[in-house]
């Protein structure tokens, strides 16, 4: 059985699109295909340029300090080490991680690690960010703090964002547009624009769509 079937959408540059669907519906596979880590048997995935994929959790390298982890994004673009470290320090200050540059990830809170993971993604300098349930492991307070961080980064960096989540209110709070996915094989069953009505109206529309798709079984 195919994992993806009938996933057809165009994301506009600078726009943030959420893909929301039940667990295990194939959202991560879609991101892997877009990032070139997996190939589709048929169909086309054209991310329109290089993408940066941020996996679930923070996935920071435990043997690197916070600064080295963030600088890794810049190093992978070919930046020399001193320049990468300098850009990492700028990001550390901008994201409120000042004073923790030499710390190892395990010594930091979940929210701080997540900020570092976002900073690493940002320094990779790619126009499109694929975020795979980035805040799923965080507590509610830290998560809403991270929503603010991501909103600020959208304003300054203007990336095209594809955010995979199973949190409807997160999608409504962060994105311009919500694509509703069916259970496996994944299809896009609805395309809802955020901002038309009240946030709760958006959430209600997404929930209704998920119910129709049989995703709330």
């Amino acid at each position: 059985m195919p994992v993806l079937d009938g996933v057809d959408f165009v994301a506009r540059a600078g726009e943030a699109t959420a893909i929301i669907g039940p667990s295990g519906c194939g959202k991560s596979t879609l991101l892997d295909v877009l990032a070139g880590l997996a190939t589709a048997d048929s169909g086309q995935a054209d991310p329109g340029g290089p993408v940066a994929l941020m996996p679930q959790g923070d996935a920071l390298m435990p043997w690197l300090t916070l600064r080295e982890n963030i600088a890794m994004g810049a190093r992978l673009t070919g930046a020399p080490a001193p320049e990468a470290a300098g850009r990492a320090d700028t990001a550390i200050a901008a994201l409120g991680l000042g004073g923790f540059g030499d710390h190892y990830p395990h010594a930091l809170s979940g929210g701080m690690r997540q900020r570092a993971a976002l900073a690493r993604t940002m320094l990779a300098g790619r126009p499109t960010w694929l975020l795979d349930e980035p805040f799923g492991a965080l507590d509610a307070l830290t998560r809403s703090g991270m929503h603010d961080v991501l909103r600020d980064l959208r304003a300054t960096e203007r990336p095209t964002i594809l955010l995979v989540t199973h949190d409807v209110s997160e999608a409504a709070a962060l994105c311009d547009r919500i694509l509703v996915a069916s259970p496996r094989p994944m299809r896009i069953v609805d395309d809802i624009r955020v901002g038309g009505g009240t946030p709760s109206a958006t959430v209600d529309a997404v929930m209704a769509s998920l119910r129709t798709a049989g995703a709330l079984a």
Partner: protein
Amino acid sequence: MSTTDDRVAGPAPGATTSRATAEAAAALTGAPPTARGRRPRPGQVALAVALPLLAIALWQVAVWVFAPREWILPSPGDVARAGWDARDRLWFHMQWTILIAVIGLTLAIAIGSALAYLIARSRIAWLAAYPWIIVSQVIPLVALAPLLVLWFPPFVAILVLAVLMSIFPVVVAGVDGLRRTDRDLIRAARGLGAGDAWTWHHVRVPAALPRLFTGMRLAAVFVVSGAVVGELVASERGLGALTRLTAGQFETAITFAAVVLLGLIGLGLFGLIALAERIALPWTRRATRRGA
């Protein structure tokens, strides 16, 4: 994350010995990692020290009570006295064993790590070499000693045996570490554009180091056994040769002293590897920051 399972608690001044003991026990028995993370309480340290002392005391009492002939079972006191009197002789042989163990361990680590990398990285090497490395361990290596003596000069034969007996844990731990990298870490690197070579050298290799060090600690123990077996068969020098010579001449107390020194060499090498791990991998002992 699987890569952080081998964490060890921070340094405890004065508790180094007991921590090393606990680590040794954990590494050798495969105790759950959670048992290694905690600093032992003073009572536990006292127990760890008291048990061997009790065993020595029982030995001494048994010798007093049953009064065996000294060449069958000398008392701990006899062993200490004979060892002190023969200190020059013991030191002469001990240097040789240390030399072979250190060179053997260095070679086992260097060759074993390189083999592990090749086997984990190349499917051809995996298929061609790995099964044979495992099969080679089924042969009791001790049985090879007379053959090695036939083919090589004694020093080389003993060294080959020491390397053969200690390389296996390095290879297995290295291959395991390189192939069981946390998927999320690899996805994070690849998702930012890292190629295959970059991912190997910047993600898989560093992530494998804690497991590799576990293999190296085991190798530090086995290399002494290899050296001793070689010396028993092929040498007139070394503590292994000394146990053969002294047991044959009923100098049993000196045999015991040599055995004690062999244990100390193993402990020393084990401690050296553990120290190298603490310095090389500060993140595995939950150090807060670099240089702390």
